[in-house]
């Protein structure tokens, strides 16, 4: 791994830490409905399929995050890697992180959402696939941000309508499902 190669996909202001983007209270873009781009973290660190695990681990350590998108040579998002994936690969493969390929540990099933999609659609995807984070990918396949269930949670308080997709009870169901035993297994393991 070379430090010079530690490219950062920057989509907001250069150098702005990701947390700043979500600390700002977002306003709905139109008609009271939040769009994914209103609440996502626009600055995203990524790694590539050819990297070894020390690179995503370093990004997680430096930027205090738990999931990093994995890009192919065309800069398209082809997977996700979490701190848990790294922990388990280190255990199963029994080698230092610098000797384990990202490709051998990353999840290859990646569900993404468009920046212009309503937040409720992103929430539906998380619920359906039992995932807590979605890479935000534009129509050209470029990674433009990350959306977490926590981002959705922070914008779910306003809805008092029980049938609204972002009512607290609905978000809670997603959460309970995402954390239920076995949810951390890969989709392909779940059958």
């Amino acid at each position, binding site marked *: 791994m070379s430090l010079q190669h530690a490219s950062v996909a920057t989509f907001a202001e250069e150098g702005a830490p990701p*947390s700043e983007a979500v600390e700002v209270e977002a306003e709905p873009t139109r008609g009271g409905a939040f769009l994914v781009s209103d609440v996502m973290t626009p600055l995203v660190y990524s790694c590539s399929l050819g990297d070894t695990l020390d690179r995503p681990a370093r990004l997680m*350590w430096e930027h205090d995050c738990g999931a990093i998108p994995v890009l192919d040579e065309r800069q398209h998002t082809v997977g996700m890697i979490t701190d848990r994936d790294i922990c388990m690969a*280190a255990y199963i493969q*029994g080698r*230092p992180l610098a000797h384990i390929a990202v490709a051998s540990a990353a999840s290859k099933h990646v569900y993404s959402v468009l920046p212009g999609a309503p937040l409720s659609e992103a929430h539906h995807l998380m619920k359906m696939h039992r995932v807590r984070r979605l890479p935000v990918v534009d129509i050209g396949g470029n990674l433009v941000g990350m959306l977490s269930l926590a981002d959705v949670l922070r914008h779910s308080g306003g809805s008092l309508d029980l049938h609204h997709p972002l009512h607290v*009870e609905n978000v*809670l*169901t997603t959460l309970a499902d*995402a954390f239920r035993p*076995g949810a951390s297994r890969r989709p392909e393991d779940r059958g």
Partner: protein
Amino acid sequence: MRVEEVMNRRVMVCGPNDSLGHAAQIMWDADCGCVPVVDEGGKPVAMITDRDICIAAYTRGKTLSELMVSGAASHHIFTVRPDDEIATAEQRMRQFRVRRLPVVDQEGKLVGILSVNDLARHARAGQRREELSAEGVVKTLAAVCSPRAGCDLAR
């Protein structure tokens, strides 16, 4: 509603002198992301998470079997008692921004673990209990996972 009604009693533990490989094996077998570290008397002295293991593997550059739990685990632990009210546990999670609390008896021995996910599952169960409302759990989660806490439900 009390902690003992919601907590998980079947908890796998490890010791401070175990290797990180052993802790990771427990997490793999039990499909969990956090294991309490207990001393010889069964008292919790630390908590270790899959994230702690990931970061230790990176900063130390060794295999998990070469690293010890005590060097990677967080020694700041916040506990509750089985007969504490759920509201007390929620308040503690919000205050200290932790998703899990070890439950200890009067002698300080580990008897269970209470996670915010246990609260979510119980709140979802639908009974209209004022002590454990969906809104309350969401507020706790929002506090635990605020950007300043540096967590995004990942842990």
